[in-house]
């Protein structure tokens, strides 16, 4: 099956070339077919590869294909090579699957763009899919980095898609540069890896990791930390998360695909992929888990008070990513990836649902001017309900299984504090998600009459993907039922754990946690029950605050004036960065230009020497007084001096 691998990225690339070069002439119909079509084709091939892997014995689940040697200079060598193993196969399915649905959705969402813009949009979307697949399927760190920056570029292009509005372009630029800060760390990580292993290919690095790097040593620490800096930049964790809320300036399907389902999870994938290194740096794992949990809580608090529907979802994404990093940080890689998959389903659905609402209300994104859309948009309503329940972690939906697995692993790995953070965040998640849900679909319609008139359900091309994602959000969790519940349902295995085990097996030799068949400790049930309880509590509180007694939130906000304004202004982090980093840098640059360049070098050194030379020449010319006797005097004096020197010298 190896020869098929290159087809997966080739299809989107083909889409890019066709739409990019001939898009305007082909017209919206053709472009609308090619764009999603190529991603669909990639999905089919991924599925074929997935099934082929399933058919193999666990240890043999690895397909590789090397196209050609990309860069070979001195002792550095990097190929364009692909690796399809359970981890990357899962990601491929998510990227192409969810991607395909979002492409289809976009056809409807973007239909009022002119043909040039339409073609440009799908070119960028296909380019993104191509870059994301490169990232996921790369068999060495360098190609992974190529995909890494490629998706960064596409997010820049797509955020600033409606470039006529200056803020969109600025948001795009901000995203790219903050990503670049992360990539800076990633690059240093790659250099260190190459320095220690003499190669960047996974096959050379991971198997020999334990022998080359001293476990817990400085080198392992710095490699993993630098790689994590890259992950923080890309997956919008503290402190490099500031670009994601602004990234909402892009079209909603873009937010769904890039800033929810796929790109932002690249960081989690990278940490999971290099688990062999991270296992050697427990300190870094602790940092990962810590930042994950902190970001989860921090983002949840901000999400609580946002009024723009997409901003709420953005902070929710940051929070959920925090969960994934928490999972990966406690070495529960499989749990982290599982949450990544389920999150892709319901977060994409939430974004597309929000898109459908915005589309219906002609661009209205403020929750305070929505409400009572349930009768008008039934499909969107029910699918959004499924997704909101899933993210809140209500069994039997997807969110419950993946989030609970992470919480349990955090507790089981001996991090009660992190578990507590996660637990509180679970409650907050339920609270702000249902706040959004009730404000949008229930209660009186607070928009303008004209909006009410126009509000209508989205066309089929938008609602069908919603429905599919809705189903996925419901059943998505069943692929990872923990043993604790599995036994009651007649020995249903934790499919995803088993599926990913071989990839993470090689890390520390002995079988992953899941394989242990020991009795499930009672604590797991207790925690499970607790998390369900806190979720329902959150939902009820949300219903109470925003449905039953809508004036209560105003009163609470009035009483807790200070914390409310802090949250409202997102802890002023953006302003802080601007003041601490951006403005001083610009000032320093101006200083460098005006003072150092023009003043010191040009003015003083170059200009200075020129003036000195001029002054000298002017002084010298004074001697040419024109009177012959002085000439003769000087002449004769000189003669005497020479003579004296010659005689007595």
């Amino acid at each position: 099956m190896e020869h098929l691998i290159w087809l997966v990225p080739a299809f989107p690339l083909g889409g890019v070339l066709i739409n990019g070069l001939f898009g305007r002439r082909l017209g919206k119909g053709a472009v609308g077919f090619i764009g999603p079509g190529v991603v669909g084709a990639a999905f089919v091939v991924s599925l074929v590869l997935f099934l082929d892997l399933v058919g193999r014995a666990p240890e043999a689940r690895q397909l590789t294909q090397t196209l050609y040697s990309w860069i070979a200079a001195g002792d550095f060598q990097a190929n364009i090579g692909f690796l399809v193993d359970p981890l990357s196969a899962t990601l491929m399915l998510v990227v192409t699957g969810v991607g395909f649905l979002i492409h289809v959705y976009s056809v409807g969402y973007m239909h009022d763009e002119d043909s040039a813009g339409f073609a440009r949009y799908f070119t960028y979307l296909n380019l993104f899919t191509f870059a994301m697949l490169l990232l996921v399927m790369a068999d060495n760190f360098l190609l992974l980095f190529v995909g890494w920056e490629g998706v960064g570029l596409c997010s820049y292009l797509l955020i600033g898609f409606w470039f006529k509005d200056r803020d969109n372009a600025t948001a795009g630029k901000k995203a790219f540069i903050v990503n670049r800060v992360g990539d800076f760390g990633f690059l240093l990580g790659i250099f260190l890896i190459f320095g220690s292993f003499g190669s960047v290919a996974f096959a050379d690095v991971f198997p020999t990791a334990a022998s080359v790097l001293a476990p817990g040593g400085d080198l392992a620490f710095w490699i993993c930390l630098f790689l994590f800096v890259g992950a923080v930049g890309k997956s919008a964790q503290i402190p490099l998360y500031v670009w994601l809320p602004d990234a909402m300036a892009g079209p909603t399907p873009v937010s769904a695909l890039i800033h929810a389902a796929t790109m932002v999870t690249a960081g989690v994938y990278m940490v999971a992929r290099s688990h062999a290194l991270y296992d050697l740096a427990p300190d870094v794992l602790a940092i990962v888990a810590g930042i994950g949990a902190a970001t989860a809580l921090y983002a949840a608090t901000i999400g609580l008070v946002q009024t723009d529907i997409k901003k709420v979802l953005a902070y929710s994404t940051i929070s959920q990513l925090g969960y994934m990093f928490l999972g990966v940080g406690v070495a529960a890689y499989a749990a982290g990836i599982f949450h990544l998959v389920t999150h892709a389903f319901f977060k994409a659905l939430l974004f597309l649902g929000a898109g459908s609402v915005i589309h219906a209300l002609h661009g209205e994104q403020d929750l305070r001017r929505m409400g009572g859309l349930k009768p008008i948009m039934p499909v969107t309503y029910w699918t959004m309900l499924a997704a909101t329940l899933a993210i809140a972690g209500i069994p039997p939906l997807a969110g419950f299984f993946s989030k609970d697995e992470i919480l349990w692993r955090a507790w089981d790995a001996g991090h009660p504090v992190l578990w507590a953070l996660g637990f509180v965040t679970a409650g907050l998640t339920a609270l702000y998600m249902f706040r959004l849900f009730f404000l949008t679909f229930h209660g009186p319609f607070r928009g303008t009459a004209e909006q009410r008139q126009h509000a209508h359900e989205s066309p089929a091309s938008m609602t069908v993907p919603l429905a599919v994602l809705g189903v996925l959000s419901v059943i998505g969790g069943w692929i990872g039922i923990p043993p604790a519940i599995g036994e009651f349902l007649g020995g249903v295995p934790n499919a995803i754990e088993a599926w990913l085990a071989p990839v993470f097996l090689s890390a520390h030799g002995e079988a992953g946690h899941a394989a242990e068949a020991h009795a499930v400790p009672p604590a797991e049930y207790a925690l499970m029950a607790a998390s369900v309880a806190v979720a329902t509590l959150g939902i009820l509180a949300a219903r109470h605050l925003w449905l039953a007694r809508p004036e209560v939130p105003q009163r609470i906000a009035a009483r807790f004036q200070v914390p409310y304004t802090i949250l409202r202004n997102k802890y002023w982090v953006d302003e802080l960065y601007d003041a601490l980093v951006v403005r001083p840098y610009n000032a320093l640059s101006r200083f460098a230009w005006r003072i150092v360049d023009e003043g010191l070098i040009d003015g003083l050194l170059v200009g200075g020497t020129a003036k000195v030379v001029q002054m000298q020449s002017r002084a010298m010319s004074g001697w040419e007084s024109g009177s012959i006797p002085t000439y003769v005097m000087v002449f004769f004096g000189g003669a005497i001096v020479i003579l004296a020197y010659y005689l007595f010298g």
Partner: protein
Amino acid sequence: MSEIGVGHYITLSAVLFTIGAIGVLTRKNAIIVFMSIEIMLNAANLAFVTFATAIGDLGGMVMVLIVIAVAAAEAAVGLAIIVAMFRHRETVNIEAFSTMRG
């Protein structure tokens, strides 16, 4: 009064040369300056001849001839310049001619 040696001639040449030089330095009349230059040249000639006969090399003699020729040429041209200067400024005082200053 011992035998007249080469030293005597050379000293005489030096003295004449210096007198010529002083003439050039002190006098402001172009003609006189010119004549002082002639004295200096002749002093040089004397030294040439002295050494030529002292070491028996004809080079000195030929040199004197050339110097005389050059002096003649220089005198001719110099005097022509002085005439031109005189016509221009009605005076031969070299102080008057300083337009070439820097």
